[in-house]
């Protein structure tokens, strides 16, 4: 059964953009256009994730989120916010959101983040101490990485990046997600900055004659996977 997503957005064209995109990716999508509708749907049905706009008629997104959390509803929530509210990211996270995305965003960014959220569900690979991708292994306790049994020497930051990519194995991790989660950056420095970090990491894990595992997706991000 596919994952169920609730999209709450009052702007019809923006809602259509998100809803259609998610349906194409194979999600089951419900949508709501006002705060009270969203709260009603979210509490009466079961969803795997909620995409929640901040500015809503009737009841704003943060209030909906607070009401949900007060009712012991733990569904992962991504807040969508206008640029002018970019500063209020902390307030959003404090209210119980798992992620905070500033509009305008690319669909692939939202998709990657939803995948990310769903992967963090209890019982997902998050709890495992050893992460694997083909013959690449990462031991989270011993902080050791091996490729085909041979140790790979990584700097601390490289280890963090690899760990993030392995946790989201076969899924896209965007540049912004890396910047936010590894460096705590809230803006895109617009250079090949992340690319240089990734290509250093790639040199260390994808050796000569080995099957490449770390893939770059132009304009989107990176993916660690055995498949091309």
């Amino acid at each position: 059964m596919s994952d169920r997503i609730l999209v709450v957005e009052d702007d019809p064209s923006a809602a259509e953009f998100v809803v259609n995109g998610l349906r194409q990716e194979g999600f089951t999508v419900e949508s709501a256009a006002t705060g009270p509708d969203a709260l009603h749907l979210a509490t009466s049905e079961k969803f795997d994730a909620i995409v929640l706009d901040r500015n809503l008629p009737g009841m704003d997104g943060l209030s909906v989120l607070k009401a949900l959390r007060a009712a012991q509803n733990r569904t992962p929530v991504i807040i969508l916010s206008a640029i002018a509210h970019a500063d209020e990211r902390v307030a959003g996270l404090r209210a119980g959101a798992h992620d905070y995305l500033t509009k305008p965003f690319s669909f692939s960014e939202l998709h990657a983040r939803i995948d990310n959220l769903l992967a963090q569900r209890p019982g997902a690979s998050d709890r495992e101490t050893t992460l694997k991708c083909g013959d690449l292994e990462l031991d989270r306790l011993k902080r050791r990485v091996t490729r085909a049994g041979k140790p790979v020497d990584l700097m601390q930051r490289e280890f963090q990046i690899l760990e993030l990519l392995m946790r989201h194995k076969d899924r896209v991790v965007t540049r912004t997600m890396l910047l936010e989660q590894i460096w705590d950056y809230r803006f895109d420095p617009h250079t090949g900055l992340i690319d240089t970090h990734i290509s250093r990491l790639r040199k260390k894990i994808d050796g000569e004659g080995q099957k490449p595992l770390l893939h770059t997706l132009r304009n989107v991000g990176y993916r660690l996977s055995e498949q091309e």
Partner: protein
Amino acid sequence: MIWRGYVLITAIVVAVLLIISACAGALWLVDASGQSLITRLERESATTELDLYVELRREEGAAALVRAIARHARIAGEHHIVAVADRNGHLLAGDLNAWPPLPSGNLTWAAVPSDEGPTAIHAAVRALPDGMRLLVGRDDSMHQAFADAVLKVAELAILIVALACLLAPGVLIAISVRNVRELSRTAELIAAGQFSARTPTHGGAGPFETIARSQNAMLDRIEDLVTGLKTVTDSLAHDLRTPLARLRSTVERGINAPGEAAKQTALENALGETERTISAFSSLIDIARAEGGLSRDAMTKVDLAALMRDVRELFQPLAEEKQVELRLEEPREEVILGHKPLLMQAVSNLVHNAIKYAPPGSQLSMELTREGDEVRIVVADRGPGIPEDKREQAVRRFQRLGAAGEPPEGVGLGLAIVEACAHLHRGTLSLEDNEPGLKAALVLHA
């Protein structure tokens, strides 16, 4: 507000009544003591005169006394009264027409009933042993003259006070009105769109000076905000035109492109253009929020030393790629109250610029120091630097100083964001000569 007027009027009426009664009391006191003094002098001189006549009678006889009194009555002034009568009360000599009907015996100072015109007479009377009676007195002309003098002085005083009362408020009101006019003229000019209008100040400490100064300070701030906002909207309107036009032509080319691959390339280019435009947009909003002080709400404790280490670590691979050595000198910890995302962006922009212009093999230094309340973040490179006359321009929005024809990287807001960050932290951004190279100092007020 009407009751305020009533209170003022009541206060004025009460004050005027108090002043009038105080003046009337003072006048009465002056008059009464003056009159009693005059009376005493008149009585004493009359008594002395009577003593003289009694002496004359005893030594030279009654006939000599009558002659002396007749002579004295002829010579002395009008207000001086003297008379003598025999034992039967017939007038023998003097200023009076007849001996007045007075009680018998001596009188020290009594009013004399008189039929000689309106003037009142007071006199002392002495009875001699042989029954003759002597009278020496004064009419009330002295008293009248004194009362007139007091009244005249009072009139003069009232006139002076009244003039002062009329003129002083007039002068005060004229001064106030002039000051208020200056303030309101400034307000009118502002309302008419002339934002540079200011009320002239003279450096004093009066209430109008204070108002004028705070009005001017307020106007300075408003002008800054308006100018900032105008610059942002102007620049947005101007600079979004280019990427939007490029985007449009890319999309158009994609539509007309023959092959699938060409269409794909056009779409990817269009996405890139869109992202650049969005990024310029959000940078401009960051700048506006910082310059407007709105981001101040989001300030937290930030360890600048850790922040510098993070930035260095982030840029390390890029620096290595360009063969530039990144050196960092920082204390173990330097915590200030600041806007962390903006500070990170500012320091990143400085380091990024420096790496961009640093020649291969050169050294790039990052430095964090503190002096009193001032925290200095200095990023210095050995690149071409910026000529002194171009430094101000470099900080302006959408200014790119790169060589002509070179495709610009980024949107030209890097240093503008750094400066906005400096202003938000009540600091400055200064660009200096690193001999050779550029030394950018972001000074923050901790």
